[in-house]
Structures are given as structure tokens and as C-alpha cells.
């Protein structure tokens, strides 16, 4: 009487479905193979989902505590500005600049957590405020200009070249996903995260460290957005105060497609990775078939609803 009876997750079915569809409708290359299945295309998909994928790991934890983090896109923009300014304008080394960016990002996250946990304000409101404020901060720091990183042989170019490689970006995502999966399923902290979201009142009665848990969760979400921001800077060769707009929505979409409930207490990292893959493959399949980008959004909207509808809980009675 030990193991939970295993159920085949519906989100995995949705993912398999979209893969089969992508193979079926994929254009054929000159050598007769399907373009979708070419290794270059598959790794492109992974690279493209990595930024949102990393953010959605933190978002999963936040949503599990019955919270939400709307500030992730703004934090990403702040990180791109801090890291690029650090290298290009301030002349800091690569490591120092990255640490500054991650520190600033985590600090915003911790601020979200402290306000949410101690003032007992709704996380939607708190992170809406930081979403606006931090976007302003990023624009103010950079005078609302992109900070370009060239392709030459200076330090900035070295940074961009090394951190924009597919292996680094995908590797970072995979390593973080693994770490957060372990964090959620194997650790005391992970259990507190699920417990606090499942029944906050009962968590109080059980004497759980609710404040600390929330502060950590939002801090981690900020830190992950910062990591995503550093990778974004390298990949796009610029610090961009207007980067990451609406990323919070893509991250939330990945989380809910992965079966995590917005009301908290129930969800998984594996589900969120599946959700990110689902969105990535869907985007790829539409672009390979030259679907108009406006139509692409409409199709995505329908498939998000279908994917979540397929896994809603069946009423027991």
C-alpha cells in the first residue's frame, strides 16, 4: 500500500497528438525526409521553447501556491539590460555582469514574495505592480534604448557567442527542469509549496512556514526570469528594455496545458515541460507550413482550450 496508482497523464496524450500531427503535415525536403523531423529543426524547437520553458518552471511553483507572477517578462527585460550594460558600458566582466543581472532579478522576485506574504496582498495585484514598475526601471536604466552587442572580438561578443549556442541554452533548460522537478517532488520545500497552495488555512494550523515558502517561490521565479533574460541577451545580441512583453501569458499557458491547476495545490514540473513542448511544436508546425502569423494565434487559442479541456477532471458523480 505504498505507491499512488499511476494514471496516464492527458497532457502527454495531447503532446503525442501534436507530434503525430506535426509529422503528418510536415513539408518534405528535397531528400524526401520530413523537415519537421530533421535534427536541426528539432533542436531549433527546443532552443525556442527554452526561454519560456525556464520561466514557466518558476511559474509552476508560484501557481502551485495558488499565486501568479505577472512580472516575469519585465524581470527578463531588466536582466537583459543589466547584463548588457554591465559588459558593454560598465566594463564589468561576464561573470560579474551575469551575477548582477541574476541578483537584481531575484531581488524583484523576493520583493514580490515579501509583499505578498507579509501584507497578505493578492499576488495578481502585487506582481501587476512590479510588472509595470520593473518595466519602467529597465527602460529608465537603458534610456529606453537597445544595448547592442556586436559580432566582433570584444568581451560582449564572446559572451553572446558562448551563451547563444543551442547546447548552452537547451542544456540550461534541461538542467533547470531536472533540478526543479527534484525540488518539487523530493524535498521538504516542494511539499510545503504544494501544501500551502492546496489549503492555506490548514497550512497555518499545521504550523508550516507559509511566509518563507512564498518568499522563496517568488524569489525563484524572479531568478529564473533573470536566467532567461541572460540567455535572451546572448541569443538576440542585445539588451532590450522592451523584451519579454506578454511572456507571463506564454508561461502561464505552458503551466496550465501541463495540467497544473490555477487554484493551486495540484500540478507538476513534468506537465509544465510537456506544456512548453506542446506550444513549441505547435508554433513550429504552423510556421513550417507558412501559416499566417495572425491565423497562428487563432489556432493556438483553440488548441490551448482543447488541450486543457481534454484533461479537466471528470465529475465523479
Amino acid at each position, binding site marked *: 500500500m*505504498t505507491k*499512488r496508482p499511476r494514471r496516464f497523464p492527458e497532457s502527454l496524450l495531447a503532446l503525442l497528438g501534436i507530434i503525430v500531427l506535426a509529422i503528418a503535415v510536415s513539408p518534405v525536403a528535397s531528400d524526401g525526409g520530413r523537415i519537421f523531423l530533421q535534427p536541426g529543426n528539432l533542436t531549433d524547437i527546443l532552443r525556442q521553447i527554452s526561454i519560456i520553458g525556464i520561466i514557466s518552471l518558476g511559474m509552476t511553483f508560484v501557481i502551485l501556491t495558488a499565486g501568479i507572477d505577472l512580472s516575469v517578462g519585465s524581470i527578463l527585460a531588466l536582466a537583459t539590460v543589466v547584463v548588457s550594460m554591465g559588459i558593454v558600458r560598465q566594463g564589468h566582466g561576464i561573470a560579474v555582469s551575469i551575477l548582477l543581472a541574476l541578483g537584481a532579478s531575484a531581488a524583484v522576485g523576493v520583493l514580490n514574495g515579501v509583499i505578498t506574504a507579509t501584507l497578505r496582498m493578492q499576488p495578481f495585484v502585487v506582481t501587476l505592480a512590479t510588472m509595470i514598475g520593473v518595466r519602467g526601471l529597465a527602460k529608465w536604466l537603458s534610456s529606453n534604448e537597445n544595448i547592442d552587442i556586436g559580432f566582433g572580438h570584444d568581451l560582449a561578443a564572446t559572451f553572446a557567442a558562448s551563451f547563444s549556442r543551442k547546447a548552452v541554452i537547451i542544456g540550461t533548460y534541461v538542467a533547470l527542469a531536472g533540478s526543479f522537478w527534484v525540488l518539487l517532488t523530493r524535498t521538504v520545500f516542494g*511539499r510545503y509549496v504544494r501544501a500551502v497552495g492546496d*489549503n492555506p*488555512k490548514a497550512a497555518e494550523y*499545521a504550523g*508550516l512556514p507559509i511566509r518563507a515558502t512564498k518568499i522563496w517561490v517568488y524569489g525563484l521565479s524572479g531568478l529564473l526570469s533573470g536566467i532567461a533574460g541572460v540567455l535572451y541577451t546572448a541569443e538576440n545580441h542585445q539588451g532590450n528594455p522592451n523584451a519579454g512583453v506578454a511572456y507571463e501569458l506564454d508561461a502561464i499557458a505552458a503551466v496550465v496545458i501541463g495540467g497544473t491547476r490555477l487554484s493551486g*495545490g495540484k500540478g507538476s514540473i513534468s506537465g509544465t515541460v510537456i506544456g512548453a513542448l506542446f506550444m513549441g511544436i505547435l508554433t513550429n508546425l504552423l510556421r513550417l507550413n507558412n501559416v499566417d502569423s495572425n491565423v497562428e494565434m487563432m489556432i493556438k487559442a483553440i488548441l490551448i482550450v482543447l488541450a486543457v479541456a481534454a484533461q479537466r477532471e471528470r465529475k465523479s458523480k
Partner: protein
Amino acid sequence: MAFGEVHALIGENGAGKSTLARILSGISQPDSGSISLDGSLVRIRSFQEAQRLGISIIHQELDLFPSLTIAENLAIGNLHYSGGRAELDRVGLDCPTSLTVDSLSIGQQQLLAIARALSMKARILLMDEPTSSLADDSVERLFALIADLKAQGAAIVYVSHKMDEIFRIADQITVLRDGQTVATLDATATTPAEIVRLMVGRDLDLTARPHRTPSSDPVLTVDNLRTRKLSGVSFELRRGEVLGIAGLVGAGRSALGAALAGLDPILGGTVRGGRVALLPEDRGAQGLMPNLSVLENGTLAVLGRVQKFGFVRDAEERRLFDPVASRLALKCASTGAPVSTLSGGNQQKVLFTRSLLRDPNVLFLDDPARGIDVAAKQDIYRAIDEFAAAGKGVILVSSELPELLRCSDRILVLAAGRQTALLDAATATPESIMAAATRL
């Protein structure tokens, strides 16, 4: 059943009482069989249809809207509500109708739910454990009300675990077990012992008091305690003692638990000694994490003891949980299943396990046997006795006086946040307790 009659339904949790209530109120549909009313077959497909047929249900899980006011709750979905507070007065709920439901105590909410059912002009009223969170004075009023309705020709289905209530008010008693009718008996021609036997299939002794000899050594000393809701509470809890707490709804029984467990600030007086673990009053709202597994719920408060570098050690966790759970006779198909899949009695045992694992020397049990079946109650009583026998202290809150008299050594009575009596349970009577509880 006939109009002008009170028909009691009794059975252990999971016997099918609430399912029957859901079918009669149109929430669920029967797989087979039929319901007839006034000699003709009816099908109840919706709540409105049930209302038109004159059927009204007071559910155990109160179906009120917490952010709406009392008046709005009375009016919503109600074909007959015409304003006014006649029904509120009838049940004895004397708050302004502009208050929102979440500002009411559970007991007051229960009264409101009854008023709401009354205002629907029901001919057939089904009450699912209506007294589970009512204090004795409200229960008396409810019984008077039921007698009243019965005299007016209404038919009342009364679902309860409480034997004394059933024998006071029921004309007919139907015993359910595992979803089937075991027997329908005339209340005057049967005995509580027979009903219990029919419910569980074996004899249970609910009345035997355990023989305990508390030492004079105190494990917890409370002197002139004052909080937002309490004042002037003083007692000494001795090793091996069970101290009962009696009082009407809102008298401060749960507030005492919150203060002793550190959930509510202590404003004055002293509390000495005691590592207090609290088993909260409301299992669902204050206790369980429904999506977490049975095991996870049990060990939640003591993860610090089974961790290494922040990682939960599964074997250690199980070593901690299993012996306590099996001592409580916790029954579940898998400890990995969500706790919400268990019956009420077993859920309570999971929470009891959580409290015991904190290794307290004082257990504050806030109505631990509320709404659970007879067999689970016995297991809880046995656990209380064992805990006291180990030289620790138990504070037991209960709305059921027989339960307090059965389990306690002394009984502390609260009224409106003040301590009005501290009685010896061996000589206390329901009358002496009620007298103190109403002494304001």
C-alpha cells in the same frame, strides 16, 4: 414515509445517506429504482424541480454563499422568499440580515441554512446532520421547530449519527449500511444498542467510562488567560487527565485552542508548560490538504524530522507514520492516494496522526468525533485514552454532552468567552453543564 412524521436515517459514513440526499434534491440522478410522491412517480432532475415538489434539503456541507449577505442567501434560487425575517426568528438567528455569511460562526451558518430551507415552504424537509455544529440550546430550538413542522403535516427526513437525538425525535428509523437499507424500525420498538448493532454489525459500548487516575502533576497551567475572545480562563491540566470543554456555539471553545496552539495572540495572563498540538474543528477548511496524499498529510507538520539536506527520506517518513496510523486503525487502500478519497472518519484519523506525530504533551482536540461514524469514534476515543494513559494531557472540546461525560475527567464550561465552571465529570450532569453554559 408519511406526512406528519419524522423519519430518521442512520448509518456509518459511506453508508449512502448523503447520496440519498443528493438524489432527492436533484443534484444526482438514480441509476435505477423510483421515487413516488403523493402516490405518483416523480423524477427530480434539478434543484428547482425539487423545490416545486416541496422538497428541501439542508446539506451537511452547508451550501451557502460566503460573501453574500444573510438576506441574499435567503433569496437566491428561492421561489417563495418574500423578504422579512420570520424564518430567522423561528430558528433563533438574531443577527442583522445585512451581515455576510462568512462573518457568521459555523453554528450560525447552520441555523441560516435551516431558515433558508424553511423559507422554501417545503413539505418534505431532509436534514443531513443538522446539529453537527450546533450548541445544545440551538439544538433544543431545532427540535421544537421539528415538532412544530411535524404538527403542521410536514414530512421530515432526519439524517444523524447521534443516537439520543434520533430517539428523541424520530417516529421511524431506517438503518443504512453500504448503500442498502438494513432495516426500518418503529422508534418506540427498538433500542440504541440494536440500532448500533444493525449499523456496524457488531456491539459497541459508547457509555463505558475508562478508569483513569490522573496524577497531581500539572502538564499545562493556564492562569487568568485573556485573548481577543476569552477572558478569565484558569485551569491546571494534570498528567493523564482529559479535560472536557463545554459551551455553546461562540462561547470561545475553539478560541481557547487557537490561543494555546499559538495561532491567536495571548493578551494577558500566563500559560506555563505544554507543547500543545491542535486538532482543528473544521476538518476540511482547517485541516486537510485535499490533493496531498494520505501519507503527506500525516507527516506535513514534522517533515523536519525526516529530512536530510532538505530532502524527504521516504523510509524515515514511513517509519514515523505507519505505527501511529495503524494504532488509530486508519484504513485506506493506499497511503499514496489523495486524502480526499478517504471517508470522514479516516480523514480525521489522518489529522489525528498529524497531531500525534508532533509529539505533544498536550492534545487539544476540537470536536474530534464530529460527523464521523460510530466505529471511527470508538477508535478516536481509544486513542484519547491511550494518550492520557501515557501520562500526557488532553483537552477535549465537544458539542455532545454524552461524549464529554464519557471521555473527560473534569469539564470546564465556557460562556461568552468566560469560564463559568470547572466540574468533576464523574458527578456532573448534562443539566449542571447546561446551567453553567448559559450563565452569562
